[in-house]
């Protein structure tokens, strides 16, 4: 174990270690080389790995998504960076129609080990076009793995998993938690991998709170508050939205009989919608109260700060929802 690192450093370290380990791994995206990445994730990479492996692209998301996919099919392990997930919409067709389909459509003939890095998340007053949390829009498609770590430990282990995975992985990194001091933690120096599967991140008995990504920090803070009142919630971190593996969540729910799903994207047709559908399918007899959702309101993110905040999940909203289930 070394010194505590941030979520962002964890991703930087995973990328660098994988690049040292495997020459097939390379980085392409806008401003990833000279600039060092929009959020400085690949700072210093050009110096260490050179322009062959750290490639600045034109502003051309369709070609970034598609060329990375093609390079992956042809045997490389590209890590394509979208400056933010908002711009991945421009490359959407290549992601869902090609990256997500070639393995199946061609009967397993092709591998497609591409990683699409997508810094995302709202709440930074960037206006409607730059504040999406569209995770679910990508997670709709079997064939594409959509994952989103919530801690530095997970971020590093999941990035290594993503790069070594033979299929396409859309890797979502919530920018609001990139450097959050409260999240910093020590991570192992030796090689490790974190599975794309849900797990219990905090134990409790009062209510199961299911979340992922930046939701973990919010729920953890809510849990600390609730604990002061003697209410101990159990938090399940999904880690992966597609495939969605809910064993841990279902087991936890069978124990607590109550649940709240917390996500930062819009609630309608959201992560909660799917998780709750599966909970009632698989654990109907265990339901003691309506399962609730805390999500972004059904409104495009406004620029103005107070309005924007109103529409987003926060600690008080999580606390209120938990109490409502009790």
């Amino acid at each position: 174990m070394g010194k505590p690192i941030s979520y962002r450093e964890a991703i930087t370290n995973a990328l660098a270690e994988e690049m040292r380990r495997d020459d097939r791994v390379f980085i392409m995206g806008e401003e990833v080389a000279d600039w060092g990445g929009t959020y400085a994730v690949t700072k210093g990479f050009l110096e260490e790995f050179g322009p062959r492996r750290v490639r600045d692209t034109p502003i051309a998301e369709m070609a970034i998504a598609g060329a990375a996919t093609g390079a992956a099919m042809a045997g490389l392990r590209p890590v394509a960076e979208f400056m933010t997930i908002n711009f991945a919409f421009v490359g959407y067709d290549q992601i869902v129609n090609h990256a997500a389909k070639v393995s199946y459509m061609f009967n397993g003939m092709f591998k497609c080990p591409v990683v699409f890095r997508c810094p995302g998340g709202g709440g930074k007053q960037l206006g409607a076009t730059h504040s999406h949390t569209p995770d679910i829009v990508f997670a709709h498609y079997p064939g594409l793995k959509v994952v989103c770590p919530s801690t530095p430990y997970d971020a590093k282990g999941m990035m290594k998993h993503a790069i070594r995975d033979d299929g396409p992985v859309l890797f979502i990194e919530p920018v609001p938690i990139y450097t959050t001091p409260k999240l910093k933690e020590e991570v192992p120096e030796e090689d490790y991998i974190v599975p794309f599967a849900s797990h219990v991140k905090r134990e409790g008995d009062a209510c199961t709170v299911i979340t992922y990504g930046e939701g973990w920090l919010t729920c953890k803070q809510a849990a600390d508050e609730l604990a002061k009142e003697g209410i101990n919630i159990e938090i399940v971190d999904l880690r992966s939205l597609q495939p969605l593996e809910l064993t841990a969540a279902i087991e936890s729910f069978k124990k607590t009989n109550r649940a709240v799903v917390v996500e930062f994207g819009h609630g309608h047709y959201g992560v909660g919608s799917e998780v709750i559908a599966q909970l009632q399918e698989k654990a109907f007899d265990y339901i003691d109260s309506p399962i609730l959702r805390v999500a972004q309101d059904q409104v495009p993110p406004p620029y103005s700060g107070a309005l924007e905040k109103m529409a987003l999940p926060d600690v008080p909203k999580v606390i209120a929802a938990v109490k409502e289930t009790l």
Partner: protein
Amino acid sequence: MDKSVLLDWYHTMVLIRRFEERCDHLYKFEGSIKGFLHLYIGQEAVAVGTIAAREEGDHVITAYRDHGHALAVGCHPNHVMAELMGKATGVSGGRGGSMHMADITKTFWGGYGIVGGQTPLGTGFALAEKYKGTDRATLCYMGEGSTNIGYFHESLNMAGVWDLPIIYVIENNKYGMGTEVSKASAEPIMIEKVKAYRIPGERVDGMDVFAVYEATKQALARVRAGEGPQCLEMMTYRYEGHSVGDRTRYRTKEELALWRDEKDPIRTLQLECTERYGIAESEMLAIQEQVMEEVEESVRFANESPYPDPSTLYDYIYPVQEEPLTLD
């Protein structure tokens, strides 16, 4: 050229400059502007010269570097500043922010945050005017970096095929964020690039408001004569970083000095006014003072304006239905 026109241009260019310098300060030191802030300083002659050449009703649409265009079409600085502060009195009601300013009364359709995203929209305005049979043109602005995205090529091709009445104004400020034009565009000369779509292009000194105005007038005349889409490549330079916070390590101080100290559009216009048109220094000074007051007034206005009422959060998610849904 009429003296009052020149002074009007001068006023707008100085207004954009001082207004944005104030924005930079507000962002960095007062925290009243948040999110992204892309400054237009250095490029003022482009927005002012092109917009001066348009007729009323001609459409204007641009990218996220849009404060200059907003002020040039005549948005009141008070309302532009209020937008930057997220106030209810802003041009977009505080919901758009720096990147998303619009004013329908000026047929200014806004700034758009997605690189290249405005180009198909502008093409659509031109389609609508041709469809309706008007002689209105569209001025569609973009950075040179946005010519590498698919939107650009699909739009220009469509405009070319349909002979749409549009001018694609490419503001070539040499960089898209930190990437110099030739590193991102296999054909670094924009007017060459558009030839593939048989769109005539002209390279213009974008630091010279007269040249910008003249070239736009002529291009508009060609558009209205039915000659189809046109391209103007405005050679210009942004003095500040891509957005607030960018320390511009990708370019040299010498390069900046070359543009700012030798070609500054405001100084060039000022010299032209005093030396060629014999306008008194005192008149120019009076305009500068007036601008300082306007800028301070905009800050005062914006500071005193209310934030949007929380009850308005859900307004306009869908447009208000104006045409009744009646059956025949």
